[in-house]
């Protein structure tokens, strides 16, 4: 049995709040989702023009990954192929699918069509951080911590990855939630064991 993997950091974005490692870093209640996402971008003084091109699902996942990695993950700490992602959600890219189909009644837009896939959020996070390793996007009725943990443990324990971002990124209309975890093999002073209990308790932060 290999030693238990560790949650190095976590980020939960839900109901107008942004949490990192259990502490609330930002709050903006009452804004609609697009405004809320933009306010997170501004609050954390991010500078990444691609952000404006993304659909809400990619924006949410990308913002969560920025907060997750900030001051936690040193850029190029590992080789590009040693970093990967395992994400899941309930409604795939339906939020943007509806927008694409509406636009296609006039002229189909390739820039909207490309976001009609849930794994595009993984692509966006990979482009930003030059992550080139294993990844997968899964559809689940509700967050299945056991399955996600099994996937991530396999990738780390078989030395396929050195670090993995995993979790949940869901957007449909004004309903949204992101819960991301940075998981590695080695313990740090702030890390907690990557157990189903810990994954679920962070997921229920709010």
């Amino acid at each position, binding site marked *: 049995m290999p030693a238990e993997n560790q949650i190095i950091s976590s980020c939960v974005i839900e109901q107008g709040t942004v949490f990192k490692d259990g502490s609330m870093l930002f709050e903006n209640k009452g804004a609609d989702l697009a405004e809320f996402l933009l306010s997170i971008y501004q609050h954390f003084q991010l500078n990444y023009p691609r952000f404006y091109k993304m659909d809400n699902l990619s924006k949410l996942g990308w913002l969560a990954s920025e907060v997750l990695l900030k001051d936690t993950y040193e850029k190029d700490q590992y080789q*590009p*192929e040693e970093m*990967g992602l395992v994400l899941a959600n*309930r*409604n*795939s890219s*339906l939020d943007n*699918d*509806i927008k*694409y*189909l509406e636009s*296609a009644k006039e*002229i*189909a*837009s*390739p820039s909207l*069509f*490309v976001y*009609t*896939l*849930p*794994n*595009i959020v*993984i*692509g*966006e996070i*990979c*482009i930003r*951080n*030059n*992550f*080139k*390793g*294993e*990844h*997968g*996007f*899964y*559809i*689940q*009725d509700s967050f*299945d911590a056991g*399955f996600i943990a*099994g*996937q991530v443990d*396999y990738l780390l324990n078989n030395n*396929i990855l050195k670090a993995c971002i995993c979790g949940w990124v869901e957007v*449909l209309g004004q309903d949204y939630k992101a819960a991301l975890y940075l998981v590695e093999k080695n313990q740090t002073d702030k890390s907690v064991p990557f157990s189903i209990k810990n994954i679920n308790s962070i997921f229920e932060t709010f």
Partner: protein
Amino acid sequence: MVADNVLSPIGKTTAGNFDQLKKSVSGVKEQNKPTVSPKPFFASLFNKDDINIEAGRTQFEQLLIDSISDALKNSYIDPKDKKTILIISSTKGNIGLLETEEYTLELEKRIALSTSGRLVAEHFGFVNTPIIISNACISGVVGIIAGMRLLRTGQYENAIVTGGDVISSFILSGFESFQALSPKVCRPFDKSRNGLNLGEGAATIILSTNKKYAKNIKVLGGSVSNDANHISGPSRTGKELSLAIDQSLKEAGLSANEIDFISAHGTATPYNDEMEAKAISLSGLQSSPVNSLKGYYGHTLGAAGLIESIISIQSLKEGVLLPTPGYKESGVTQSVNVVANIQPMTAKNFLKTASGFGGCNAAIIFGK
């Protein structure tokens, strides 16, 4: 590998499909379907009477059920066994409902892939909640890799990996907006290639760690990588697909010269085939025969990795190397050994590759 099925417009079983391919029968033809596109287009689509859609199911779900049923028929695997897991791969599932139905909360639930998963699982009596993968055009290959890993950890003994996609106006208009569709039958790796054809289909592969199947063809290794370069265009260097190929070879314990042929993604878009040729070359596989089956099936999205893996397994079993329909003259900058004509072969192992939007790449190796 215990059993498999390919359900396509040209056949309802793996053997039926393979017989058609040996006779150069292709499903890709000019289609007049105003519900999908106002003008005629080339694609491989089911006819209305090909599938008998039972009440309460969509075409997508019926395809999965029919494909799984046929694969199970040829095995002794019990879906009700708690050591059996169902894995479903699809790129767009029931998205077509968005075009024909009024948008309500109920429709939202109906479209969700987990609803289809539950429906299919209940039909067969699977006790475990199915695993659903939606990772663009590599979904099918990722499904097989996920199955392989779940069996390797010992969590399950049998994995039934299925996948399918149905072509709707949603999908066709999107690929058209990218100017990615060929106005004729596609021509993978050819000088005059000018885009892909879309296709419908479903396929199922059953994997087991039970010793009684030890002499069957095996999944030897698989890997996924990301280009980290562009959302809709493939890598310019092919380095990342090559990484996935190298990792798969390592996992399989094989060297490049032990790969007897390659079933490429080969969509026939200018950029995909060029990228794949570079990756094949980077991994030292330039002398391995390469084919693309897209000229027979079109691009079947979430089913592509499954259909093309299963047909290639059949190639391995029968010792028949299938050609790349539409290929005449190389149109890629790297020298790769594209198969132009059907030929006999003695083969032990093959590599299957796939790539898709979001910069994703996958490689998997099967062997005797």
